[in-house]
């Protein structure tokens, strides 16, 4: 009986236990979860945060990537967060194995650097990488526009020139080196790349990252990767089309016909004889010439890309084609740009041998009509457009119908000397057509050694070139030819054509090794490049315009036909090596060394060594920050490096270039029956050498609050030695008074900041605000002509404004920014109005002479420039705008100067051009004196802020029966708004270009474009 009881108790206890345990088990199933978090490579992720959604309840994964968590809710959702990975949300289950996807925007993103790529967290230099897809792109047709305002330290000029960290070179190039898929572009600019083909931009800003490109990297480097097909990808099709309308954002303010007639009569009222002449030059018409020469611009673009794989996934391909058609805003101006790109990346031998083949063809056909806007602003508004027959029809037999001041009709037309060209006729009687055929092809074979996978070899060959042709024909009845003294019926034919081509051969060895916290990546490479340039042009005088010009129609007069041919080549040979080393991903080191040899220089100056060193400290990896909630990224960087500049220097410039003249005025009787043409050397500098820029850079990368705010701050100093400039040299030393030579040193210092706010990050709403800003100061530190900033004689004159004798408006001078303005000081009356030809006698000697000019401290380079990008998404809507601006840059308004007075010699020249209404503002009637022309009155603050584009779009998802398909419709306005005090058409004119920087002679307003876009992906 007792046993029974014991058994019963045991059973009951066991049962109870069982019951309990069952109960507790079922309780666990509801309240407790466990799991393992791994990455895509099945490697456990340590330290990932696991949170029960909507609660404070959470834990972190251990060294095996495992976690356990008691839940407070049922059912529950888990949020798993890890720096560098996308946040994952899953319904809680008792046992889970979860894979976190790497967040491409985050740290582990691979960033393309020169000759390889590194993880973003392992970067040591000042490198900005942006994905073309993710930036607010507006409606751009040119790749450079994608970059505008997006990267701190990068200034994208209106014409497409790019300045990375300002200007450090005067005459050599400031252009960055553009490398597309490892191929440096030489003869195809960034604009040759279809923006739709671009996957990422990487901007190497400091020398420690750019030095691997040595002698061509002083202007920085922009690396571009194009879209590549993915292995095993199914066919993907994307179409992107736009339609746009464009018009000027303003109009040059010239006098209307009635206003002009009245003005002229008042102007010459005091002189009956002049008035009579003026009246004879005015007609009864009321022509708005600007309206006559302009039209609404129309543009359309179509891009179609197909990608996928064939041969069992062994041959991924991508093929993309595009056509851009543009009708310009000036009559007869149009261009067509068809492009095609192909990418093939087959792999063999278990992915150990990968071939990457890229080819792009970009063509451009262009009939340029820009010449006549300026003409239209000046043309007499009272004269007719056409010659008319008595019956009122246009008299096409006289100058093709286009009116000009003349006597006689038909073949007897005699244009008045100095007659103005009819703005319409200029285009119609002249045919000017350009064709460019650009091509880039490269093939890279990479072989990863079997059994020693750390080592790989890569052999790249590439070709990059352009064939170009331009044809210009002037009809035989064009009056300019008649004026030139040619027999009637003889037209001119001018043709230039040629090619530019670069061939590259490159071999690269890469070694990668990871062992217990040490990561080594080393490369060594060799590049050989051959640059070849050829052009030929011919001028012919043809007696039969309508027939295709051939040798048969060679020319009527032997004397006038000329053919000129020219070819040159250039070699660049480079050896380079780099070591990237990282310890525990905390301490990073990069060392590079490049040795470049260029055929552009004399043997003694031919080789240049370009070293760099960079260190970085990943503070986030340190124990004291590792678990910081505030920082999800914090890295300190410091680097120094040397880069060079051989671009912008002519070939053979260390040798005298000899020219055998063919001009009849360049011959002399040296005996014999024929005269002898001269043979003469051009000026040259036998000791010319490259510019070398040393850059010091300190930077901080940070991410706060899980990336809500991220950005970087960099401070840099660049010193360019042996600066090249075209300078006036003492006579007696060379064959010209002007020579390109190494003149001194320049230094620029700056601080640049890039910030990215993810202000709203919700599943159906997002707001991103990107801000970039760069503060910069550039100064000459040395000039070979003399270093003493106080010595008024030590300067290099620059900046011709096209008037006066040997005139220039700027100086290069030690202690000052490049192209510092050097002007007279304007005198003003009591009302603050400028008095014409009254300048301040600054030295008080009673004369206005050169000694009264002064350095105003004003300069074309901005003190500060910035960009602002806003991107807002709500459900399927997106909205955004891009803006940029600058502060502290000045412009010499040469256009205003040229239209500031009514004094002209029109009457004696038998012409009466229109006036700009600006002459009413000045009220000036005398000829501007030389000092007046060089007055600070024309200097204007050209600080500005521009809204480059505003766009709005809507995306339809799964528009067709296919997952992932989408259609986006968008509308964009470009050149929306400019806020500035500057009175010219565009405060950004010549902001930091080479040459005429800071001098604004632009007559035509900027163009505003409205675009509709459709993007279809499936």
């Amino acid at each position, binding site marked *: 009986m007792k046993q029974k009881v014991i058994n019963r108790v045991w059973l009951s206890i066991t049962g109870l236990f069982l019951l309990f345990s069952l109960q507790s088990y079922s309780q666990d199933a509801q309240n407790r979860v466990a799991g393992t978090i791994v990455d895509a490579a099945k490697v456990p992720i340590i330290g990932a945060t696991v949170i029960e959604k909507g609660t404070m309840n959470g834990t972190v994964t251990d060294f095996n990537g495992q976690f356990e968590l008691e839940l407070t809710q049922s059912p529950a959702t888990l949020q798993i967060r890890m720096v560098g990975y996308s946040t994952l949300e899953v319904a809680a289950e008792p046992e889970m194995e979860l894979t976190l996807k790497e967040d491409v925007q985050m740290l582990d993103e691979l960033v393309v650097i020169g000759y390889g790529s590194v993880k973003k967290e392992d970067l040591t230099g000042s490198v900005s990488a942006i994905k073309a897809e993710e930036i607010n792109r507006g409606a751009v047709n040119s790749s450079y526009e994608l970059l505008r305002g997006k990267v701190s330290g990068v200034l994208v000029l209106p014409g497409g020139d790019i300045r990375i960290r300002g200007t450090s070179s005067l005459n050599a190039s400031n252009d960055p080196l553009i490398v597309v898929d490892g191929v440096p572009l030489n003869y195809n600019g960034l604009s040759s790349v279809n923006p739709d083909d671009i996957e990422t931009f990487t901007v190497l800003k400091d020398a420690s990252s750019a030095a691997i490109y040595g002698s061509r990297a002083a202007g920085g480097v922009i690396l571009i990767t194009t879209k590549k097909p993915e292995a095993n990808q199914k066919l993907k099709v994307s179409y992107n089309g736009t339609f746009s309308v464009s018009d000027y954002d303003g109009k040059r303010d010239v006098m209307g016909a009635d206003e002009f007639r009245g003005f002229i009569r008042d102007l010459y009222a005091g002189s009956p004889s002049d008035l009579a002449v003026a009246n004879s030059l005015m007609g009864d018409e009321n022509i708005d010439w600007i309206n006559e020469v302009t039209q609404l611009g129309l543009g359309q673009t179509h891009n179609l890309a197909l990608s996928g794989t064939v041969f069992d996934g062994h041959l991924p391909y991508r093929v993309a084609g595009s056509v851009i058609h543009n009708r310009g805003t000036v009559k007869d101006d149009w261009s067509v740009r068809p492009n095609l790109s192909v990418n093939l990346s087959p792999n063999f031998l278990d992915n150990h041998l990968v071939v990457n083949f890229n080819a792009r063809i970009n063509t451009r056909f262009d009939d340029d009509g820009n010449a006549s806007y300026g003409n239209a602003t000046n043309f007499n508004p009272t004269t007719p457009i056409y010659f008319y027959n008595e019956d009122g029809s246009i008299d096409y037999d006289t100058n093709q119908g286009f009116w000009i001041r003349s006597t006689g009709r038909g073949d007897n037309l005699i244009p008045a000397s100095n007659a103005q060209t009819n703005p319409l006729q200029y285009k119609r009687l002249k045919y000017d057509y350009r064709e460019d055929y650009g091509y880039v092809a490269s093939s890279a074979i990479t072989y990863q*050694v079997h059994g020693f996978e750390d080592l790989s070899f890569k052999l790249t060959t590439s070709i990059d070139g352009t064939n170009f042709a331009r044809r210009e024909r002037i009809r035989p009845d064009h009056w300019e030819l008649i004026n030139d003294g040619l027999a009637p019926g003889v037209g001119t034919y001018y043709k230039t054509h040629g090619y530019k081509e670069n061939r590259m051969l490159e071999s690269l060895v890469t070694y990668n090794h990871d062992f217990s916290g040490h990561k080594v990546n080393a490369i060594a490479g060799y590049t050989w490049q051959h640059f070849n340039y050829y052009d030929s042009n011919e001028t012919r005088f043809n007696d039969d315009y309508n027939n295709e010009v051939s040798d048969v129609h060679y020319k009527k007069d032997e004397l006038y036909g000329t053919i000129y041919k*020219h*070819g040159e080549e250039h070699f660049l*040979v480079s050896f380079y090596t780099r070591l990237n080393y990282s310890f525990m991903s905390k301490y990073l080191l990069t060392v590079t060394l490049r040795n470049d040899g260029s*055929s552009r220089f004399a043997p003694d100056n031919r080789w240049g060594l370009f070293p760099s060193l960079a260190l970085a400290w990943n503070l986030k990896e340190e124990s004291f920050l590792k678990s910081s909630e505030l920082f999800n990224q914090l890295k300190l960087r410091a680097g120094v490096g040397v880069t060079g500049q051989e671009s912008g220097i002519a070939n*053979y410039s260390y040798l005298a270039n000899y*020219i055998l003249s063919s001009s009849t005025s360049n011959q002399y009787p040296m005996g014999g029956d024929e005269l002898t043409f001269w043979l003469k050397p051009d000026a040259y500098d036998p000791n010319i050498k490259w510019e070398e820029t040393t850059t010091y850079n300190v930077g901080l990368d940070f991410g706060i609050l899980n990336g809500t705010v991220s950005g970087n701050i960099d401070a840099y100093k660049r010193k360019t030695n042996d600066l090249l400039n075209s300078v006036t040299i003492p006579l007696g030393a060379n064959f010209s*008074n002007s020579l390109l030579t190494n003149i001194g040193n320049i230094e620029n210092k700056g601080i640049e900041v890039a910030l990215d706010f993810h202000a709203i990050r919700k599943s159906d709403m997002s707001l991103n605000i990107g801000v970039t800003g760069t503060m910069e100061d550039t100064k000459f530190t040395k000039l070979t002509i003399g270093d003493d900033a106080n010595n008024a004689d030590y300067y290099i004159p620059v900046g011709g404004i096209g008037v006066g004798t040997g005139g220039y408006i700027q100086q290069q001078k030690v202690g000052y920014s490049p192209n510092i303005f050097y002007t007279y000081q304007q005198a003003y009356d009591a009302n603050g109005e400028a008095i014409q030809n009254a300048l301040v006698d600054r030295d008080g000697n009673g004369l206005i002479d050169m000694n009264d000019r002064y350095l105003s401290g004003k300069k074309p380079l901005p003190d500060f420039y910035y960009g602002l990008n806003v991107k807002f998404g709500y459900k399927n809507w997106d909205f955004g705008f891009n803006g940029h601006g600058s502060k502290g840059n000045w412009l010499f308004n040469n256009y205003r100067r040229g239209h500031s007075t009514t004094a002209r010699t029109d009457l004696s020249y038998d012409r009466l051009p229109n006036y700009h209404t600006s002459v009413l503002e000045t009220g000036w009637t005398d000829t501007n004196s030389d000092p007046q022309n060089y007055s600070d009155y024309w200097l204007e603050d050209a600080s500005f802020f521009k809204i480059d584009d505003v766009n709005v779009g809507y995306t339809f998802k799964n528009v067709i029966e296919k997952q992932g398909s989408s259609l986006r419709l968008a509308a964009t306005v470009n050149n929306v708004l400019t806020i500035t005090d500057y009175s010219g058409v565009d405060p950004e004119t010549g902001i930091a270009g080479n040459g005429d920087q800071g001098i604004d002679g632009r007559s035509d307003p900027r163009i505003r474009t409205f675009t509709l876009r459709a993007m279809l992906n499936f």
Partner: protein
Amino acid sequence: MKKIIIILCVMFVSGAMNIFTSCTDDLDAFPYNETDFTSENAYGSDFENYLSGLAKIYLSWSNISDLKVDDGGASELLRAYWSIQECSSDACKNNWKGDAWTQDINQNTWSTASNAATYAIYARTLHGITYVNEFLRQTTDDRLKQRGCSSEVVAKVHQLRSEARFVRAYMYWIAIDTFGDVPFVTEDSDFGAVTPEVGTRSQVFDYIVTELEDITANDSPMADAGTLYPRADKGAALGLLSRIYLNAEVYRSTVDANGNVTAKGEPMWQECKAVCEKIFELNYGLCSNYFDLFRGDNGENPDARKEMLFSVYYDKNNNFSWGGAYFLVAASYQGADELKDENGNSLYYMGISTPWAGVRMPYEYARDYFGVSVPESGYAEDGTYTGEYDYSDLRAGEFYIKGHSEVMSDIGVFSQGWSYYKWNNRPHDKTPAEYAEVAAGNSGASIDIPLIRLAEIYLNYAEACLHLNSTGVAVPYLNELRNRAGLMNDISTYDRDYIIKERAVELSWESLRRTDLIRWDLFHSSTFLWNWKGGSYNGQGFSEYKLVFDFPDTELVSNSNLSHKPGYN
């Protein structure tokens, strides 16, 4: 599989190695187009190329294509030098007030500021000198042999080198005459972006003398006189030497910090006399008709040619420019003065199509030196001339005064003063009517400009002999000049005033006047006056420092070895 891998490895490595070894040779790249030259291949072994090189050097006077200046024509060496030599003196005034500098030159009021004429002279002379230096560097015997020149070519190039050195000596003469001390560079100087050293006036003078003496030596490869027209020969070099010796006192003088002459230099009258006598032994002779020397066909006319020791070639089609012969003709007359035929059509008397109306002679100069006089009937009621004037010297036969007036109260009015048609593009054997049709289409002139001619040597000789008190030997030469001018009453002796007067007439408007006046201490003097001298209508003396011009502004900036001339600050 393994094989493929090995092959791949070998391919990569050997590919790379191959390139390593051959690549660096590529860096010796030269232009590959057959018409693109560098100094490495421009000359080669062909003599014609060396002639082309020398052609550039001869074009130093007239060519304007290779300097960055505003107005090519105004910056031509001959025009610029002519302007400062004639317009700064009593012989000529330029009425182009629009060019500010012309007034400064007209009135001796120039200052430190650059003017287009002195800049042009500075630039063109130094430029020419630089080309000569390069030519000499490129034509050393070693260089010629490296290029595989035959010994025959080498010998012929020696002659070209002497000609180049003559041109350089001439350029240096213009430079020291205009500026005094000047940058001094030879074929041995540094080249490139360097700052040339300055040579003193007497240093450069000595150099010119040495060079000219060397190339005129008996064993010099320079061609014999009269054999190479218009290229330079021994006659040209001797002629320049004679001019240089004549002015030795000036060029070797010393000046103080204010630009005042403290001591004249050692004269070289004896050397001058000797070199003139050497020239007399050569095959030169006076042209029978004075004005034929300045006509469009003078280079083709043997009679004119025999008087010319050295000329600059011009042609209306070839070697045309706006600043040489064309300037001299076009600037000398105005449209209103064009002669017309009975139908009222222009006869194009000057042999070109378009007048510029720029330079004319003050009445007083014509009167005092040319001995012209205007009869009472020569004056119209309004005081202008009717065109009639009296003269006995044939050299006064080419004035045009109809409608002009005597008093030059306004330099800017062309018709105040006497038009002087010395330079005339019409061939000597053509009447205006015969040539009118061609002339109407001539927008260029073909006069070769004689820079050194026998008459100047005669006068140099006479002046040297006067200083040496041996006037007797020179009298026949002076009479020869008189007789050609239709003055048949021979002289038996002469004095300084005679020389001054004779040079004023015979060498009028031939770029020598300022130099002559300076040599005679008359240029800045307050006792020898002419209208507008020194900036005042009645004339006044001016500071002695203006005997030379200041360096151009731009050069003072770019050449740190230069400083303002003494007196200019």
